[in-house]
């Protein structure tokens, strides 16, 4: 062979990891070994994306792919360390993972809940094949998705959550993935699988967060399969540390007359990419994909969403809002696909971005592929700045410039936050926004 391309070179780094995982996984069930081998092969075939790939045109992941990520070390944390990443007032079970490993001592079991199975992925692999085998990695497609393939080939732990038919799980479930700084920056590949049986209902919060200047790479994949008539509210809180990298892929599969709502909140990370994919696979399904992303400094937040109306009578609603300051960059790509027979589809997509500085920028791309003829699909994108007129109005009533800006930015975010039905999550988010809005420091100094 002549010279290796950068991509081949970097992907080659993962060969030893694949080989080790293969050796260590000798006791894994055959279906999983097959799946992992296929994923590793797909990773090897596709390689990491570059900005020449359409789906990564605005997001250069070289800082991720060129880092020789180490093994995540075992880290001990106290309950105090993790308390601020657990949303109070939910009274539900909490699974905490530190550097990708389940931390039993930090997790909160709240006794058995009828109809709820909640276990670590590590335990589930050998034990819950009946649940996992038909679904795991069957939905979050690895083809052309190098990061998803990497996760599928290498994941060691995560969570399995299964809701029995007709079970209504009242307490909201939290799964928290924490990273701590490591001497050698490390990669973790958390894997979550959620199965809602027929008419099952549940609410779940996934939190990805870094403690201190956590400098690792989190490559997360979550699959959600909502059975016929199921109702699922999903909240994804990405609060990685500023130096961290985050790539996430959340895949929802909606059965007949199911209702899934997803709220993806991205607040951290140096480069953070999230793909939310929803397949409306049963008639009459209702899907809500909402998102809020906030970045300052030199950070990059990329949200790709894909809603696939595969059958008739589906409804989807999508509102993504971005707030960008400093030299931050945002990317939004919203694809809505309406397949030829998916008549009576009703899809609506909105993406709005607020730029708080002249240097911040966003690339927003709606992609509507409508192959049916009796549908209603709308989309709209706006990019704007804080209204000078509104700022003056607030100031003319005595409200200081900083507070006026904060009010208006929070109001901009309210389109998304006010749609969060779970009050403690909304309150937590309001608190995070109040504390962490990337308002220009020179304005802060003036107050």
């Amino acid at each position, binding site marked *: 062979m002549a010279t290796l391309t950068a991509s081949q070179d970097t992907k080659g780094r993962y060969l030893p990891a694949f080989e080790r995982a293969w050796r260590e996984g000798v006791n894994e069930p055959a279906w999983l070994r097959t799946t992992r081998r296929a994923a590793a092969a797909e990773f090897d075939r596709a390689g990491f994306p570059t900005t020449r790939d359409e789906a990564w045109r605005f997001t250069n992941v070289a800082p991720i792919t060129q880092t020789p990520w180490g093994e995540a070390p075992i880290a001990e944390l106290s309950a105090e360390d993790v308390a601020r990443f657990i949303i109070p007032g939910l009274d539900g079970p909490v699974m905490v993972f530190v550097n990708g490993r389940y931390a039993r001592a930090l997790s909160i079991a709240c006794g058995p809940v009828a109809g709820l199975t909640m276990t670590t992925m590590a335990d589930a692999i050998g034990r819950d094949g009946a649940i996992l085998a038909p679904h795991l990695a069957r939905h979050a497609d690895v083809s052309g998705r190098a990061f998803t393939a990497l996760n599928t080939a290498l994941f060691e732990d995560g969570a399995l959550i299964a809701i029995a038919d007709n079970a209504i799980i009242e307490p909201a479930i939290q799964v928290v993935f924490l990273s701590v700084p490591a001497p050698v920056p490390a990669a973790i590949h958390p894997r979550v699988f959620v199965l809602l049986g027929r008419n099952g209902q549940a609410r779940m919060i996934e939190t990805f967060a870094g403690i201190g200047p956590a400098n690792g790479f989190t490559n997360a994949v979550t699959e959600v399969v909502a059975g016929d008539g199921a109702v699922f509210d999903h909240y994804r809180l990405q609060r990685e540390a500023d130096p961290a990298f985050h790539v996430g892929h959340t895949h929802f599969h909606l059965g007949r007359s199911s209702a899934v709502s997803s709220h993806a909140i991205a607040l951290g990370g140096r480069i953070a990419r999230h793909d939310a994919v929803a397949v409306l696979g049963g008639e009459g399904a209702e899907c809500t994909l909402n998102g809020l992303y906030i970045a300052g400094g030199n950070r990059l937040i990329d949200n790709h969403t894909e809603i696939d109306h595969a059958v008739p009578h589906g409804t989807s609603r999508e509102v993504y809002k971005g707030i960008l300051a400093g030299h931050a960059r945002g990317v939004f790509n919203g694809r809505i696909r309406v397949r030829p027979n998916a008549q009576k589809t009703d899809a609506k997509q909105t993406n709005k971005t607020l730029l708080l500085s002249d240097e911040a920028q966003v690339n927003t791309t709606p992609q509507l592929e409508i192959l049916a003829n009796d549908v209603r699909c709308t989309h709209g994108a706006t990019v704007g700045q804080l209204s*000078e007129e*509104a700022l003056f*109005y607030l100031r*003319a009533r*005595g*409200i200081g*410039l900083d507070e006026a800006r904060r*009010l208006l930015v929070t109001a901009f975010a309210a389109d998304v936050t006010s749609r969060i039905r779970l009050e403690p999550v909304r309150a937590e988010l309001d608190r995070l926004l109040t504390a962490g809005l990337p308002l220009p420091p020179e304005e802060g100094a003036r107050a």
Partner: protein
Amino acid sequence: MNEANHIMLEVSNLRARVGGKDILKGIDLVVKAGEVHAIMGPNGSGKSTLAGVLAGRGEYEVTGGSVRYQGGDLLGLDPEVRAREGVFLAFQYPVEIPGVNNAYFLRAALNAVRRHRGEPEIDAVAFMALARARMTLLDMDPALMNRPVNDGFSGGEKKRNEIFQMAVLEPRLAILDETDSGLDIDALKVVADGVNALRSADRSMIVVTHYQRLLNYIVPDFVHVLSDGRIVRSGGRELALELEERGYGWIEPAVQDA
């Protein structure tokens, strides 16, 4: 503060421009405590610019002159500080702010004013009681308190909301910028009643209007006619009636002659 006849506002040779164009070309105006002054004039004469400069609107560049407010320099203050010191502008076009709750906004404003005065902040319960009392004054639907600021309000509701805010914030100097525009006669009466209820010996008002009509209900102590950036006539209430009868046409040639 309660001293009779103390000077609230003293505008001297005020000049201002916007977008490189001179709009105010030397305004002189003295407003004493308790007085109501009407500023009239044709479109483009500088009425709204004067109101905006006094409130601290950013796009106006003051190029000369001075404004003293309660004895201190006004023009050097940020708009929020002017507001906290008791200057209130009722906007000609109240701004819609989706996502900001009217009650939250107004309580934040009131507390900013109270902190500035060294007074304790008002809690939500006490505020709502105060707000309800003031809304009665303006014959406003209490449900508007829980709506976003001006969002989806009718023209009349927006103007009432301005005067309602004024009733809650209790300014020393209220500047009403074409508060009558777009109001039907019933709404005009309600707004005027609200304004009149707020007239007091230690509060001054500047009522900017194009039409005499409002002054039938808010009876001014003085009327000034603004034309091409200058006050060209000052007088009592009768001046407004004369303008109503004769229009602005007879004023402008006088300026040309001057």
